[in-house]
């Protein structure tokens, strides 16, 4: 029996809180996932959803954002799918290092580093038709 939860929300910032609640509630259905890891996933998914919302706003698109949560035996995968214009993750300029005096000029560009830091695995597939970000958190068990 599949244990997938799918959520579709309007591409608007006021739905971010809902997306976070769903991810946290979905992850809590699985025992064995520690609260801190649910917290990590919640933040990472919120970042991915924020980017999706901004990508739609950029195109003036009315379409909704899709969030799929897959509760596996040893992992939780969350996919955030948008129909924005896509981007090249390799081309994203990163902010100056924290010690750099210019650091304060950069208010953006922290979302992707956060996702990478919070999730156990992050994969990004972007095309002109949209972007799929997959965030994975492993459940602790004999193998971890």
């Amino acid at each position, binding site marked *: 029996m599949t244990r997938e939860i799918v959520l579709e929300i309007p591409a608007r910032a006021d739905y971010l809180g809902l997306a976070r609640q769903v991810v946290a509630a979905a992850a809590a259905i699985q025992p064995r996932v520690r609260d801190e890891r649910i917290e990590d996933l919640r933040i990472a998914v919120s970042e991915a959803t*924020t980017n999706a919302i901004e990508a739609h706003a950029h195109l003036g698109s009315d379409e909704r954002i899709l969030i799929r949560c897959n509760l596996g035996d040893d992992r939780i995968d969350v996919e955030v799918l948008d129909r924005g214009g896509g981007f090249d993750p390799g081309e994203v300029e990163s902010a100056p290092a924290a010690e750099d005096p210019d650091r*304060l*000029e950069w208010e*953006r560009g*922290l979302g992707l580093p956060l996702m990478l830091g919070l999730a156990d695995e992050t994969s990004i597939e972007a095309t002109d038709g949209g972007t799929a970000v997959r965030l994975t958190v492993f459940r602790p068990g004999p193998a971890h």
Partner: protein
Amino acid sequence: MLFDVQVRPHGEWTVVSVVGDVDLASTPRLRSTIAAVVRSRSPRVVLDFGGVDFLDSSGLGVLLGALRRVRAADGVLRVVVAAPHVRRVFELTGLDTIFELYGDLEAALVEPLQAAPGAAPGATSEVEAGA
């Protein structure tokens, strides 16, 4: 979604208290509140995120902008962070080394001002007077 921001003076400090979730939906209000405080009041600001359960990269962006404004006004910005997962967001982005983070409001208000970079120990009060 819960979000509220309150401003109140406390001695030489202005305390900006935030409650709720800081994300793309709430950062516009947070940004303009902080900008107004820096423009019109003392540039000694404590941002109290003790009641914040969620802070994302857009919130960190607002904080970076706030620090820039406060520094431009020769002021001081302190940030109170309580929840471990909120602190974690600072650590993962390296911003815990840029911001003065405190565990509670009390601690942020009592800590003496630091000497300006390069100033000799004991110069603190001079720096304070010049601020």
